[in-house]
């Protein structure tokens, strides 16, 4: 198990290094002069030269690459062009909010989706199964940002049950939770249906396997077989699919943040794009990449915990 984890961590580091290289290349492959883009078309040539020097853009590309990587290694992501604050601090403040939103969304989707899938698989083609199937496929098709807008209109603007904007007062947990309910609902709803369908299909397949017949032949009850012996196997592919889909979940969270004006990576990236604030944009993209890699790493480790056969290869 330890060697498996170490190998997966090693692979993740490799992916991270490749991501940094691609990110750096992208910045310099994009056509156009960064100084003109940053300062606007009316900037004087003198201003542009000063800008290039301050950003180190007058250096040869390999030197720039070296600076980029060595600054990354010390945790320096550059400074915000507008506020002159370190990007690391901005990203560091935004990251927990986005992670909280994404995990809350996924968490409640799992809490609802897994039992729904189990009920469906235990009674396939029953009325309950059909109803769950109908609800699932309906919500899967709903984009989270669209849902966010409707939730905002219905519950925050018209009914005034829940707050519309922001993430709540710092330090006030109750207020923060109130601010989390609607965005988390928007982020997770599509996943409820998705997870319910995945669990249903996977559990139905597992229940066909020969070992399930063995347990039935020993008189173990169908519910116990499904929950104790089939569900852990059925969850293996579900966990893998969720891991791959976490990127999707993050981008959903990012859009929902923009709709709810919630501080987070989404708002940060959105503002950075609209104000052409490239160090902040690079910082958010890098951290999002890191988040994605961390999510995949935890998926791999969780899969190995569920499936002893994965741990075998050292």
């Amino acid at each position, binding site marked *: 198990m330890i060697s498996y984890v170490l190998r997966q961590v090693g692979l993740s580091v490799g992916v991270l290094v490749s991501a940094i290289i691609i990110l750096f290349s992208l910045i310099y492959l994009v056509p156009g002069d960064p100084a003109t883009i940053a300062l606007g078309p009316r900037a004087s040539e003198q201003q542009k030269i000063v800008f290039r020097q301050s950003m180190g853009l007058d250096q040869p590309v390999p030197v720039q690459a070296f600076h980029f990587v060595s600054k990354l290694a010390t945790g320096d992501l550059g400074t915000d062009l507008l506020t002159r604050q370190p990007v690391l601090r901005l990203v560091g403040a935004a990251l927990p909010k986005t992670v909280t939103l994404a995990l809350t969304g996924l968490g409640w989707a799992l809490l609802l989706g897994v039992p729904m899938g189990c009920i469906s698989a235990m009674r396939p083609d029953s009325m309950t199964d059909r109803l769950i199937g109908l609800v699932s496929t309906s919500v899967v098709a709903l984009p989270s940002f669209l849902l966010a807008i409707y939730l905002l209109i219905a519950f925050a603007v018209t009914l005034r049950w829940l707050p519309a904007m922001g993430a709540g007062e710092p330090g006030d947990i109750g207020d923060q939770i109130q601010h989390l309910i609607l965005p988390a609902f928007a982020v997770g709803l599509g996943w409820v249906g998705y997870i319910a369908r995945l669990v249903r299909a996977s559990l139905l397949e597992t229940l066909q*396997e*020969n*070992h399930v*017949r*063995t*347990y*039935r*032949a*020993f*008189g*173990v*009850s169908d519910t116990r077989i499904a929950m104790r*012996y089939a569900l*852990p*196997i059925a969850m*293996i592919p579900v966990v893998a699919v969720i891991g791959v889909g976490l990127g999707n979940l993050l981008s959903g969270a990012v859009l929902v943040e923009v709709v709810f004006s919630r501080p987070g990576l989404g708002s940060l990236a959105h503002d950075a794009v609209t104000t052409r604030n490239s160090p902040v944009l690079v910082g958010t993209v890098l951290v999002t990449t890191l988040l994605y890699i961390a999510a995949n790493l935890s998926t791999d480790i969780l899969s190995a915990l*569920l*499936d*002893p*056969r994965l741990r*075998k290869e050292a």
Partner: protein
Amino acid sequence: MTAIIDMNDFSITYAGERGPVPAVRGVNLTLEKGRILGLVGESGSGKSSLVSAMLALLPKSAKVSGRLSIGADDLYALSEAQRRAMRGQRLATVSQDPFTALNPVIRIGAQLVEFQHRLKGISRSQKLERAREMLARVGISDPGTRLTQYPHQLSGGLRQRVAIAAALLVNPSILIADEPTTALDATTEAEVIEIIRELRGAVDGSIVFVTHDMGVVARLCDDVAVMYAGELVESGPVAEVLERPQHPYTRALLACDPARIETPSRSLPTIPGTVPSPHALPAGCIFSPRCGAVIDICRSVRPAFLPSDQSRVACHRTEAS
């Protein structure tokens, strides 16, 4: 003599998309306590359906008629809950494929404890100890370590021994071994058969051993029942049926057993034709389209399953003689 399994005109019909499928028809079979029955037949002969019926594991689409008694109980007159209560207590099974019969993500020990769930009043550690002793009895070395391992860490032969140990742990009155050696190589097969021979005394009841290998029947079983296309064509003591087969299908089956062929030839003997589909069964005797000794009556009247010497046979030719 007490009959432990008694089937009387027992039939199984599946609800299929193209209408009902009569998979097993009119089986009359008795197995006495302490004996090993070899249930022989080709793929599609209905032996797997019959095994599922004996284990009360038929799918919902199956309808049964006639009687199948386990001891004094008419199995299909009982409620579903009563039938389930027999599984894992009076009925136990060793399945065909040792590679898929155990849960891949649970340790062997935990699985063997679960299989003893009917045993009340003994602790988990006592069940684990029973499991360890049983693994030692089926010839598994270092049983303590095996209990902490996962199925994929064991070879096929070891896994089948674990499955046999699992079945013996519940002290069944009927142990049904559904082709337990088909997936194993010849050496391992011989070992597994040897274990069942040695442990037959540990089963306080009878063993049904499903196979398509007449050689295994000869080595292991006391009685043999031959199935063809969903019907029982011949049954009786092994010595009798193997030495003096009366049904043409039994004779053909024995003639195809490579171990019994005395003069080497370029090709193995086969039975001409194919097993009829349950959707298009021939009138009269089920074997008549492929039978070399067919007479007129075979094509119109279904032969009764009648005693003949020490066996019972469904054939017009033996009836006539």
